[in-house]
Structures are given as C-alpha cells and as structure tokens.
C-alpha cells in the first residue's frame, strides 16, 4: 500500500531533521549558530512529521487541522528563534568568531 510507505518515509525524514537540530544544538559554538540550527532544521522536521500525520489521516476534517498546525509552526518557529536572537543581540552578547580577524 502506497500510503503506509509514504507515512514511514515522512516520519523517517522528520526524525532525521529533528536529530540534525539536536546535534546542532549540542555541537555548535555559540548562541547564534545554535539558533540557526534549531530554527531551520527543527521546523523542517516538524513539518515533515505533520505531513506524515496528514497522510495517515487521509481525507478528513482532521487533515485540515494538521495542515493548519503545520502552517502555524512554519510561521512561528523561526519567528520565535529570531526574537530570541534579537534579545540576545540587544543584551550585547558577542557572536563567536574564528580566532582574531
């Protein structure tokens, strides 16, 4: 059945990008690079997983709710990361640079 393969592929993709964002949050050197990793790859992972949920529900009213949830997360997750990074900038937290140049 095509649907179950599609659901498994979307869930695997979402898990992969969530894992990438977790690795980025642990391994990158300072706040701004971590915000970059968290906002982009975690948004992509969440949207892929919500697409899997929408495929699993099929044609239903619930699919509309999942689509609204995906659009909401697509908008708000980078906005929150931007607000936090700007708050850090206004608190004079210096960005990390490689050596002295």
């Amino acid at each position, binding site marked *: 059945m095509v649907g179950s393969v599609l659901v498994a592929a979307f869930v695997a993709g979402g898990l992969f990008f969530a894992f990438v964002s977790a690795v980025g949050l642990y391994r990158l050197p300072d706040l701004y690079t971590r915000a970059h990793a968290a906002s982009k790859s975690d948004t992509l992972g969440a949207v892929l997983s919500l697409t899997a949920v929408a495929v699993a529900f099929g044609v239903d009213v619930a699919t509309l*709710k999942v689509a609204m949830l995906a659009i909401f997360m697509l908008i708000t997750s980078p906005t929150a990361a931007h607000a936090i990074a700007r708050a850090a900038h*206004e608190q004079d937290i210096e960005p990390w640079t490689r050596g002295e140049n």
Partner: protein
Amino acid sequence: MIQGPVSTVLVAGALGFVTISIALLGRVLVGPTMQDRVIALNVVGSNVVVVIALLAAAMDRPAFLDVALVYALLNFLMSIAISKFTVERGGVL
C-alpha cells in the same frame, strides 16, 4: 481508518521524538546564557507538538489535534514573552 503497521510506525516516530527531546534537556540545563535555554526549550516544545499529533494519528483520535494546536500557541507565546522580558526587564510585561 488507520491500519496496524502505520500505527506502529507512528508510535515509533513518537518514541524517537521523545528520545531527542530528553537528550535536548541537557542543553536546557547547561546552556550558558538564558537565550540558549529558551531556544532549547522552544525546540523541545515543538517536538512535543509533533509527538501529540503523531499519537493522535496512531490512536485515531482527532480530538488530540486541538491539544497540539493549543500547545503550539503556548510554546510560541512562551518564547516571545521570555525574550521580551529578558530585554526590557519588566518594561513590556
């Protein structure tokens, strides 16, 4: 509506997201600045939203999606409120 293997895949995906979120709690604990903790908490919150949606599909209960929507809204408001509060020290809130 939802078959057995698909439900298993969805529950396994939810377990993976829960594992990643628990691992991220380390960054919430050690994060050197306040903003590090808030960013890690934001990622954990969006992972929780995804877990709720995956479980809603796996257990075939569309009512859980309303919980996921409200949780996403609260997660966004938490990030915005904390970032405003750390900048203005009570000027906004």
